[in-house]
């Protein structure tokens, strides 16, 4: 217990020099600490990305506003998107996976602890490199500053001819580096899950969180790498005079789009699948029933993984592909909605006939179901290519993907925070603050992102630093901005809760939620070595079997 970094404060422990504590954290290879590092890192960038979003929304509060210049605005939406995807969503999900997966499968650490640390630091330093770009100042007419080519960095815009300074290179190299970090963590997760499960834990008995992180990691291997390849090609163009995306030399602008979206679409499934994992752990516990249809949940996820590799060009419906290509991608996109919808039904089936408790994790989970349903349905609207010819590149699609990312991923993440914070820190998060956070965030989210669909329908494209005074656009943009501020306040409440509860929250004990997976069998926080004795399991819910020896799951599986 002597090197328990998350030991409850005020417990009897010698005061150690802070240098020693920092050194321990910087050199750690313990999956739990690396998980915490990932999560804290992501939270910091969540606030930064949120500030960037707020700047965007203030600029758009009225037409012809001049809160920021177009150059700054373009940097804001580029950095906001890039930060949120690569330095908030990916790290926080890897952080939770890092922390939870080994414990949930009865292991003592990940398969490759040093690779784990290496991957974290690659990601972390990639983010710092990206933000270092802001220090470039306004040299070269601002081309030396932060990237402003949008998070897609479409060539030719990102090529040397149209982005002469190093700003695009910051984007490229920061993402290349952190991409390698992601691949490292994915390799680690797969090896851990396949090779370090405790005795008795067959793949058929693994918690769904482990299964879904396995699928997600497999996807990462073949999802991030096309982006890495495209970025290497972009660097070849920019520094070695290559012509991959040089249309003057016969190169193709469309091929960047293909490579980017072959990464970009599966990437959003990489982001949502761990959130499905959280839901699949939390909803059963708060409904007091096992997950409905475990094998189908696994199968549907694998299905999603495969089908999502075939839908990428639904982001390119407007580039003038022929009708057969457009039809193909329309139908594959509709098809990927089927296994996804099935999962929603399975969660519904889990709640059905249960005894639902409405603590904060469950509130966020129910909101997730509702919002993810809507997000999926607006996705289906856009899968219909002609409809997409109007909706794409407008605020409708911005509303859609924020619905998925904020309404889906962030809500699921908040649920996960409230659910596992007791395990990680040993203290419960304050329930009243949690509910306040929930309702505020729900209000702000819906105010912003429900309304945001409408300007898109009224012809407002995305990525514009200002707009003409068209009827409807002004009021709607104002409402959207107000909602953003409310969300900001809710986040502050959340951060306050995190900090307050760390010092003053009630002790959690091993198993505050009366749950059934292995992480609830160890202390909160877990000891360094996770398990004194490696557990042996006989069913999907080992703690249910222990708590209900008269009716164990092992009898029915």
């Amino acid at each position: 217990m002597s090197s328990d970094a998350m030991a409850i404060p005020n417990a009897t422990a010698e005061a150690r020099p802070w240098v020693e504590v920092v050194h321990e954290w910087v050199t750690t290879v313990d999956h739990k600490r690396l998980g915490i590092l990932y999560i804290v890192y992501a939270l910091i960038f969540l606030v930064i990305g949120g500030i960037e979003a707020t700047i965007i929304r203030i600029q758009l509060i009225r037409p012809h506003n001049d809160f920021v210049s177009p150059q700054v605005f373009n940097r804001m939406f580029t950095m906001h998107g890039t930060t949120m995807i690569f330095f908030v969503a990916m790290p926080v999900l890897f952080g939770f996976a890092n922390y939870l997966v080994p414990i949930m499968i009865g292991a003592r650490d990940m398969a490759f602890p040093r690779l784990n640390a290496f991957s974290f630091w690659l990601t972390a330093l990639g983010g710092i490199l990206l933000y270092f770009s802001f220090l470039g100042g306004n040299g070269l007419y601002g081309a030396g500053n932060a990237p402003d080519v949008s998070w897609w960095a479409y060539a030719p815009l990102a090529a040397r001819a149209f982005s002469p300074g190093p700003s695009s290179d910051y984007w490229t190299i920061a993402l290349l580096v952190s991409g390698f970090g992601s691949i490292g963590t994915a390799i680690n997760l797969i090896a851990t899950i396949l090779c370090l499960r405790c005795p008795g834990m067959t793949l058929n008995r693994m918690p769904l969180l482990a299964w879904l992180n396995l699928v997600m990691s497999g996807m990462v291997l073949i999802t991030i790498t096309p982006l890495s390849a495209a970025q290497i090609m972009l660097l070849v163009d920019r520094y070695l005079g290559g012509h991959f995306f040089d249309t003057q030399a016969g190169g193709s602008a469309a091929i960047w789009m293909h490579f980017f979206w072959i990464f970009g679409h599966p990437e959003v499934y990489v982001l949502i699948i761990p959130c499905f994992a959280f839901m699949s752990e939390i909803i059963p516990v708060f409904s007091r029933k096992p997950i409905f249809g475990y094998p189908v949940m696994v199968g549907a996820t694998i299905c999603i993984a495969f089908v999502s590799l075939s839908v990428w060009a639904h982001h390119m419906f407007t580039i003038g592909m022929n009708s057969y290509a457009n039809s193909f991608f329309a139908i594959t996109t509709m098809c990927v909605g089927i296994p996804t919808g099935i999962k929603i039904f399975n969660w519904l089936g889990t709640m059905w006939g249960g005894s639902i408790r409405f603590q904060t994790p469950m509130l966020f989970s129910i909101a997730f179901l509702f919002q993810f349903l809507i997000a999926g349905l607006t996705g289906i609207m856009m899968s219909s290519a002609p409809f997409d010819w109007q909706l794409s590149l407008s605020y409708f699609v911005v509303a859609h993907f924020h619905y998925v990312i904020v309404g889906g991923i962030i809500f699921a993440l908040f649920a996960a925070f409230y659910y596992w914070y007791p395990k990680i820190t040993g203290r419960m998060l304050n329930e009243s603050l949690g509910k306040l956070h929930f309702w505020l965030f729900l209000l702000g989210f819906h105010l912003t992102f429900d309304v945001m669909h409408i300007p898109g329908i009224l012809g407002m494209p995305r990525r514009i630093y200002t707009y003409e005074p068209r009827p409807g656009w002004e009021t709607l943009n104002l409402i959207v901005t107000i909602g953003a501020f409310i969300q900001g306040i809710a986040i502050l409440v959340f951060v306050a809760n995190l900090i307050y509860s760390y010092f003053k929250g009630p002790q959690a004990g091993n198993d505050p939620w009366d749950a059934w997976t292995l992480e609830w069998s160890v202390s909160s926080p877990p000891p360094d070595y996770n398990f004194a004795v490696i557990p042996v399991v006989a069913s999907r819910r080992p703690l249910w079997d222990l708590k209900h020896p008269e009716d164990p799951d092992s009898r029915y599986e």
Partner: protein
Amino acid sequence: MSAVTSPALERPLEWKLPYRGKVGMACLIIAESAIFTIFVVAYLFYLGKSVTGPTPREVLETPIFFTICLLSSSLTIHLAAKELENDHRKTFLILWGITILLGALFLFGTAMEWHRLIFEHGLTISTNLFGTTYYSLVGLHATHVTVGLVMLTAVLLFGLADRVGVEQSARIATLSMYWHFVDAVWVVVFTVVYIVGR
């Protein structure tokens, strides 16, 4: 509730999970294959689309000898790994050394070819689409060969210091997986560049 095992649950008699090194290497190979696939797709897509400059047909010469070198190195590394499993350290080292030699020969062949292309035919990475895609694809592969050779050499040095024995065979097998991957990629690159692309 600190121990999960109830008295009734015993360790299953058979609980053998795969070796994590092999799984990790397989994952790395899958990831690298995806990168190579994108470069191959770009190469194929841009065939015949160069606006100027030398075409593949005009300047490429099929490197049969050096290909045979590289592919044979797969055989020698396989044999080396086998020898190590039987703890024949000396034979292992010899075969391992031959593998490195063959790999180095291959790199030398690539260097020679590039020298010829640059100085005799004026084909560089910035000349035209063919130049860009060719040097990128073949260069990416050569980089992977180089990294492999570095790893192999490290093992050779450890072996010469007599620190590589049968206990290391799993790790050696994992490393040779990487080397086989590099060879397999060459089969694909060779086919795409020198057969299909001409």
